């Protein structure tokens, strides 16, 4: 059976350009940029490793905010859960780095399950308040359980073994950085697959019209909870990477401030694209690094000014601005 529509209203589109190939190109670009960072900034690899860890936090935030429309300011709870789990495992004798990353991912996923289970009982502002309450509770728990977490002094004494028994975590941070880039690229590729799957479309459908999704036969909360768990695993991996690379876990890894910074990174780069999370993290961290060196007391003012400028000039973030300039939006084609 074939049905033809009246085509007078809209011109025919250009040929299909292959979204999958564009994703492959994007992933390769991230890998190449990561390799370039290794050679261009050999003295700043610790900072760049921090960027890869925080990029995973921003990616995890994009999953719930950008793809599901869930308002949260507590994403650092998931990052911190991964960091502390990996840190505690490490001081308890697990020193193999990939195992520590896995432990961080599992802890983050578990924290995501708890957080999602609580947050999805509310909507809108109440949901936002719940997220803040949860991250504050995680923060306080980490502070009080000082015999496990080191409390306000932080969890120190992490001695991570060499990667594959060969590559030691050296003083210059080369191993940690390369591990961070590989993990980031792998996570990004996996998330691209997730958000392009029917499950990912379901999440975006929920963001746009949850009632419609219900009448299509889907249960909204379980779908969102699943995304919270995935998001937690990603954030937890980032937290574990931060713990492995710095060999210390502080209370700042589970702070409201880190949650807010992650949201700023996401807004800067653009919500709901995954690319925006990485671009925003790089810009935020680079800006913080440069401006705080110039003026250590007022750098946050400059960050605030940057954010205002970006939000006014490009409401969809820098990623959205680039996409708008790059793609033939008059046809309404997906960037």
């Amino acid at each position, binding site marked *: 059976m074939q049905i033809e*529509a*009246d085509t007078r209203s809209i011109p025919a589109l250009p040929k299909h350009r292959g979204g999958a190939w564009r994703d492959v190109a994007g992933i390769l670009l991230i890998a190449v940029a990561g390799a370039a960072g290794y050679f261009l900034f050999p003295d700043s690899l610790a900072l760049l490793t921090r960027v890869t860890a925080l990029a995973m936090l921003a990616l995890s935030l994009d999953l719930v905010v950008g793809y599901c429309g869930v308002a949260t300011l507590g994403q650092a709870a998931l990052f911190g859960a991964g960091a502390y789990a990996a840190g505690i495992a490490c001081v308890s004798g697990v020193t193999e780095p990939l195992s520590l990353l896995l432990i961080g991912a599992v802890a983050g996923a578990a924290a995501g399950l708890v957080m999602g289970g609580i947050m999805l009982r509310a909507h809108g502002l109440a949901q936002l308040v719940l997220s803040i309450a949860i991250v504050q509770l995680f923060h306080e728990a980490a502070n009080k359980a000082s015999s496990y977490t080191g409390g306000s002094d932080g969890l120190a004494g992490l001695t991570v073994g060499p990667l594959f028994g060969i590559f030691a975590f050296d003083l210059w941070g080369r191993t940690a950085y390369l591990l961070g880039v590989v993990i980031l690229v792998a996570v990004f590729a996996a998330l691209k697959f997730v958000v392009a799957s029917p499950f990912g*479309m379901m999440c975006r459908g929920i963001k746009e019209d949850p009632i419609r999704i219900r009448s299509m036969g889907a249960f909204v909360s379980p779908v969102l909870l699943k995304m919270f768990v995935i998001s937690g695993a990603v954030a937890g991996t980032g937290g574990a990477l931060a713990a492995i690379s710095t060999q210390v876990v502080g209370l700042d890894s589970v702070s409201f401030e880190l949650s807010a910074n992650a949201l700023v990174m996401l807004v800067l780069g653009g919500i709901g694209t995954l690319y925006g999370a990485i671009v925003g993290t790089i810009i935020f961290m680079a800006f913080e690094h440069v401006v705080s060196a110039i003026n250590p007391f007022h750098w946050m003012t400059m960050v605030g000014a940057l954010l205002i400028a970006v939000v006014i000039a490009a409401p969809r973030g820098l990623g959205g601005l680039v996409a708008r300039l790059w793609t033939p939006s008059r046809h309404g084609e997906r960037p």
Partner: protein
Amino acid sequence: MPASTLEVQGLSAGYGPTRVLEDLSFSVAAGERLSILGRNGMGKTTLLSSIMGLTRHQGGAILLDGDDVSRLRGSERARRGVGLVPQTRDIFRSLTVEENLLAGIKDRPGSVIAEAYEMFPRLKERRRNLGWQLSGGEQQMLSTARCILGEPSLLLLDEPLEGLAPVICDELMIAFTKLAAGGSMTVLLVEQRIEAALDFAEKVVILERGRIVWQGTSTALRADDQLIEHYIGVGTLH
């Protein structure tokens, strides 16, 4: 999923405290087509919404294949095979055509989207267009195709021709007729274009102020101009 039987027994439903439907009873056999007619505001859309579980159930029963689903939520009814193509079309405007279809395939493999493209080739050409960029006819095709990909056993079509050019209406009605002709789904059609509705369905129900005032075959209704004039407000059919 084979076509479902539907039996509505003494159904009352509405919005909040307001009762829109009052003691409605009718049945549709598996694979049968039923048109629901009536003037504006008589409860036709509310009836479909109630079968879908989107309104407040206030009494009676809705039996799907003999099981009472009136206490089930909309999502659970959809999983039991009820599919609604709403009057507002309700496509996801920020998603592309292909993404809209992917969102509707449930647990089926992504390759089933080819079925939708086979049914509506125009959607294939538009597959990377965002939903809001589609014409009304294309949106209707997308909404219908997405619903069909969910393999409903009971398809509810709420004024699918509203606001569309006559040529598109004819083409859509051909599509609906072919979809229903296989007997793989039972179809309820709410439609203001009475000729299209009578051509489509074997049976007809007429609603007035939330009550069924007439039900019978489309052939019988077609032969009774006075009845049509009285309840639907149009003159002799041609």
